[in-house]
């Protein structure tokens, strides 16, 4: 009996004592829609007495309403949630359920089995210690089962229970069960599971769920509940290294400075030697502070506040490690990324990355390949789409401390956030540092940007002209350059068409290539700014994100966005190069304004309207802006 009812009614105090000392286990259930997953969870809740009477009444009412004539409850109805899903009759999100036995409290992450919902399963798996993988006894191991197993393996779930459901439908056949077990063990050998346990069940009729099935005497193992009650999830390898990401600096007054956070691996005692990464500074643990008094030791999962002996600079995002084995640090990584957004991942685009309480800018410098989770094969790719998994190189804007995910899940995992929408668009696991960061240091030259600019008596700046093809960007830019030249300034123009003949001649016009195009131009412009030049860049640059990326490459005040606003109807009528006509006929693909988007700038420093201004007037306006804002009076 999961909850000891006898003890509950006769001796509540010892009952409470027992339940106070329970452990916690996080379990993931996965399987396809028809494998009976919701029925299994409903059954576990029901059998562990966690379905309340009024919920049962609701259920009965529903059955009556639907005209369902059944002696048995439809347990699955106990666990479905959001209205639209209920109408569809399927679970389409991650839902969390709770039940308890005398030994453990269980948090069950319930995730769907559809192909398009990989992201939900990844979410559920990220916090789970054990996975219950359901298969239908009639169908055995399917593509779906392989896919789920792969995701589990990738997310580092080490313990798998293969629940072979609907045994009643196959006459409780041992042969059938053995075949499935054999099959599953065979294909999962390389997936790194520490334990695999196979149990024949019938969720609908309750066989081998909380008690031994009378109809499958040939099965001698534990029932499902007994198995997950007893399974040990303590890592089997040697002692974990202490890891403590600093979450909040606790500074109530001058005389107290503590570091609050949660221990994500290992344990710590007073007097232990610690090293703070990435700074590498060392000290010794003075106190472990909690409201209930000081502790002499603390372990994984505990949230505490640490004070240290030495006065060293530690802030949120630093990783406190045991000095015996410190974490690595880098700003260049290889990582596995699961993409969770309908907006594709483009290499070169800038995102935010959050790891170990640090949020920093990141760009995917190289998408090496994607992984097909049905057969684990590799395929080359230019972009990652929703639910796709890729191996990527990452470049971060700052050094962060980390451990490879295989060694420590908590300190090797991260999420990616879209800068515009703030959505969580991806999740990832760090494989290793590319080490480039350590070998490649920026050459600190005696002559710097400032010296070069002073020599030329000017303030370096990028004038970034954006607008539709034929809007007049190049015309205006060349007039501006002429004026600056006449004023004795040192300038250079990077023109879209011209650069495509040389530096970027390997790039086409797909979205991915356009992003790379802009990235290279941004970097080239940055070098020129560093050389002290005033750089005029004339590019369609249709995407907000890439213009922002270019802006971020420069220092504050070094980037001026100039929006050359000419409506599509006007440029199409002008059609100086005859390109719009071709695009309309479909002879040119991915043409901005026709079948490729142009995102209008929202924060351009200068806007010129070519329908009301001549090119000359526009150029004058720009030069006037430069004068007014101090770019010309050095």
């Amino acid at each position, binding site marked *: 009996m999961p909850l000891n009812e006898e003890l509950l009614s006769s001796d509540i105090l010892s009952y409470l004592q027992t339940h106070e000392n329970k452990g916690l286990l996080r379990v993931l259930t996965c399987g396809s829609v028809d494998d009976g997953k919701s029925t299994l969870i409903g059954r576990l809740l029901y059998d562990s007495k966690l379905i309340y009477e009024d919920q049962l009444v609701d259920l009965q009412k529903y059955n009556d309403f639907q005209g369902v004539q059944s002696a048995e409850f439809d347990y699955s109805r106990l666990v479905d949630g959001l209205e639209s899903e209920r109408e569809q009759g399927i679970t389409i999100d991650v839902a969390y359920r709770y039940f308890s036995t005398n030994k453990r409290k269980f948090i069950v992450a319930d995730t769907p089995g559809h192909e398009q919902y990989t992201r939900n399963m990844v979410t559920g798996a990220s916090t789970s210690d054990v996975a219950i993988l359901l298969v239908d006894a009639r169908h055995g191991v399917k593509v779906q089962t392989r896919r789920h197993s792969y995701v589990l393996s990738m997310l580092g779930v080490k313990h798998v229970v293969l629940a072979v459901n609907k045994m009643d439908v196959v006459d409780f056949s041992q042969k059938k069960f053995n075949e499935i077990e054999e099959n599953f063990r065979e294909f999962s050998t390389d997936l790194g599971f520490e334990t695999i346990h196979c149990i024949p069940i019938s969720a609908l009729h309750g066989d081998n769920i909380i008690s031994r099935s009378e109809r499958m005497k040939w099965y001698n193992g534990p029932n499902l509940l007994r198995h997950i009650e007893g399974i040990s999830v303590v890592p089997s390898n040697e002692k974990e290294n202490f890891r403590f990401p600093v979450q909040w600096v606790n500074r109530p007054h001058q005389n107290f400075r503590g570091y609050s956070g949660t221990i994500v691996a290992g344990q710590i005692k007073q007097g232990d030697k610690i090293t703070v990464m990435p700074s590498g500074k060392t000290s010794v643990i003075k106190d472990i502070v909690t*409201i209930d008094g000081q502790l002499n030791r603390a372990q994984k999962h505990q949230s505490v506040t640490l004070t240290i002996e030495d006065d060293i600079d530690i802030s949120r995002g630093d990783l406190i490690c045991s000095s015996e084995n410190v974490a690595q640090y880098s700003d260049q990584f290889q990582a596995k990324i699961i993409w969770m957004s309908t907006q594709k991942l483009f290499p070169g685009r800038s995102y935010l990355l959050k790891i170990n309480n640090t949020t920093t800018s990141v760009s995917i410098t190289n998408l090496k390949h994607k992984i097909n989770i049905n057969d684990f094969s590799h395929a080359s790719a230019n972009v990652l789409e929703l639910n796709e998994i890729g191996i990527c190189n990452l470049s971060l804007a700052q050094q962060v401390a980390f451990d490879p995910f295989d060694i420590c899940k908590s300190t090797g995992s991260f999420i990616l956030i879209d800068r515009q929408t703030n959505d*969580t668009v991806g999740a990832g696991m760090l494989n290793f540092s590319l080490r480039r960061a350590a070998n490649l240091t920026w050459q600190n030259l005696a002559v710097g940007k400032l010296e070069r600019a002073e020599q030329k008596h000017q303030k370096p700046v990028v004038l970034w002209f954006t607008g539709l093809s034929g809007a007049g960007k190049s015309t205006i830019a060349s007039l501006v350059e002429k004026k600056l030249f006449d004023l004795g300034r040192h300038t250079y123009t990077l023109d879209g068409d011209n650069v495509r003949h040389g530096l970027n001649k390997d790039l086409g016009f797909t979205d991915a290539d356009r992003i790379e195009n802009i990235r290279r131009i941004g970097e080239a412009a940055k070098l020129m700014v560093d050389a002290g030049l005033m750089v005029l860049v004339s590019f369609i640059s249709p995407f907000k994100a890439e213009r922002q990326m270019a802006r971020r490459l420069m220092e504050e005040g070094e980037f001026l966005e100039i929006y050359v606003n000419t409506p599509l109807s006007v440029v199409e009528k002008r059609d100086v190069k005859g390109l719009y006509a071709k695009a309309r006929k479909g002879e040119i693909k991915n043409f901005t304004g026709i079948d490729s988007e142009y995102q209008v700038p929202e924060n351009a420093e200068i806007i010129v309207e070519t329908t009301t201004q001549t090119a000359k007037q526009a150029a004058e306006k720009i030069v006037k802006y430069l004068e007014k804002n101090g770019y010309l009076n050095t």
Partner: protein
Amino acid sequence: MTDISTLIEQAESFADRHGLAITTISRKLLKDGKGITRLKNGGQCTVKTLTAALKVLEELEHQFAMKNGKATEKHGQIVDIQAQELTHLERLEAESIYIFREVVSECKNPVLLYSAGKDSAVMLHLALKAFFPSKLPFPLLHVDTGWKFKEMIKYRDQQINKMGLKLIVHQNPEGVKQGINPFIHGSAQHTDIMKTQALKQALSKYGFDAAFGGARRDEEKSRAKERVFSFRTVNHHWNPKAQRPELWSIYNTRVSKGESMRVFPLSNWTELDIWQYIYKNNIEIPNLYFAAKRRIVEREGVSIMVDDERLVLEKGEAIQEKMVRFRTLGCYPLTGAVESNAQTLPDIIQEMLLSKTSERHDRVIDRDNGASMEVKKSEGYF
């Protein structure tokens, strides 16, 4: 294959020598308790599996040899025992503390929604733990409908004074002006104006970008799918289809201007967890949770307590003195009492577990339709 028989032979010999069951060895070698028996009965396995199993066996032999040698050496010495597993309450507590700290680290202007009920009491207890020895770095907000039990207000003020906290009390001024009365306007309108609208007003008025709420996922089916960090549009609406995935314990707290978050540090707690935690930590809760003789009127199958003169008796109604308590607390006209003799926390827990009537059953507002909570939430109800 001869190699399979070698493995069986060696495994059996190992089991024999060390007094272990063959299933135990089998589990270690093949990750399957029945593996060896299956092979013995003519089962097959790949060369890879076999090689791996033989290697594990070799390691086991080595380990056992070492252990036996060392056991005598180490005799009498205190060995550093592996840390004991944390209890479920300790794990839940640590997780909630982490959530509190994350919000304070990343949000500009958080607030704790305080209702003077048992979940609020636990939430406040955890918040104080999270920041000790610092003071609570955010204020409390109580949305007062004007119809709360008098005793709740008394309890609230006592707690706030005792702990030296900052409390903001907000009432919907328009609702007060209109004289909203649950007896006259009904529970739905009262809740909407005095609770949902009032909450939105207060959050906008003070510009809070994150509000801690005490909701738990076990309370109701649609809550089971809500995130810990739940986003609200500028108009405080919730879109269940556009929730951010929450991986590991890395929370994305970024919002655009005007948007806000509801954060639920008790998401993973159950009702039993809450009661156990209150019991274990001696957390003070309002006396209304404990059984006492109270003045009660039976109305439409619900026992309403006569908390003040605004409850006007209808024809055929009479005030009775009954031994009752409340499983949840809210507005007194909308909260049903249950007959009970439970006067201590263990009594309450015992009664709760034996009765098995879901917690919100006694709240009148939740009983409209199957997923009513979801409708209310997408409109901005907490």
